[in-house]
């Protein structure tokens, strides 16, 4: 086992899940931008942010606040996240 694999095996499930969600959100934003023929620069302008800030958001290594995600959704005119409906408990 090499160092990469040892680090992999010591990393908690919560760390992995957190990154997975962040990456899923970043991935969705990237795909919407691509589908609309827009760039990170376009999103930065629409939100009044720097390109560097947008670049940081899209790495999937940044914990975006919900209100920031809502602002992105408004700027893109598309849903980025969706809440699964009410779960009935027996």
């Amino acid at each position, binding site marked *: 086992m090499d160092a990469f694999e040892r*680090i992999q095996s010591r*990393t908690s499930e919560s760390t992995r899940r957190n990154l*997975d969600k962040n*990456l899923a959100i970043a991935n969705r934003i990237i795909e919407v931008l691509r589908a609309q023929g827009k760039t990170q620069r376009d999103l930065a302008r629409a939100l009044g942010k720097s390109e*560097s800030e947008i670049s940081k958001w899209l790495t*999937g290594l940044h914990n975006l606040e919900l209100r920031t995600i809502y602002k992105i959704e408004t700027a893109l005119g598309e849903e980025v996240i969706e809440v699964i409906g009410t779960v009935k408990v027996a």
Partner: protein
Amino acid sequence: MKTYITLHLFKSFQKVNFYTFQFEDDEQTETDKFFSKFEKNESVKEDLNNLVAWLTLIGQKYGAKIDFFRHESSAQALPPPMSKMVREVIVNNLRLYCVCISEEIVILANGGIKTSQQAQDSPDVLPHFRFANAMSKQINELIRDRNFTIRGKNIDNFHEIELIY
């Protein structure tokens, strides 16, 4: 003195192959050196865990979209032109440099702890940033001359490629 560098497959995942560089006289690849160097460093333990989990998820699930990777922010770090293929993975102050070939192929280099805003003022990362740019320049030339053949997530002729630094 110039040294030869070869390419090696570092990790293969469903969606991405991560390759790495190795100096001819070294026992470890550049990326093995990076992870070995910081593996037991408590001050970056969580950052390193995040970095490895992130690479794994990119490899397994999301693919290496260029937007997931960041540019070195310092325009002063190297004389122009800086390679557009050189990107960095940033987890707080930890930096890992890489050369992004496609969404399925990334060549990881080495990195370190960045101690200032600009790479040129961070002695721990500057040599690795310069190295990644030098490698990217040569790879660009190989691609231009059709001596760097990729198919899906594989660099078909990576065993034959010799770079110089």
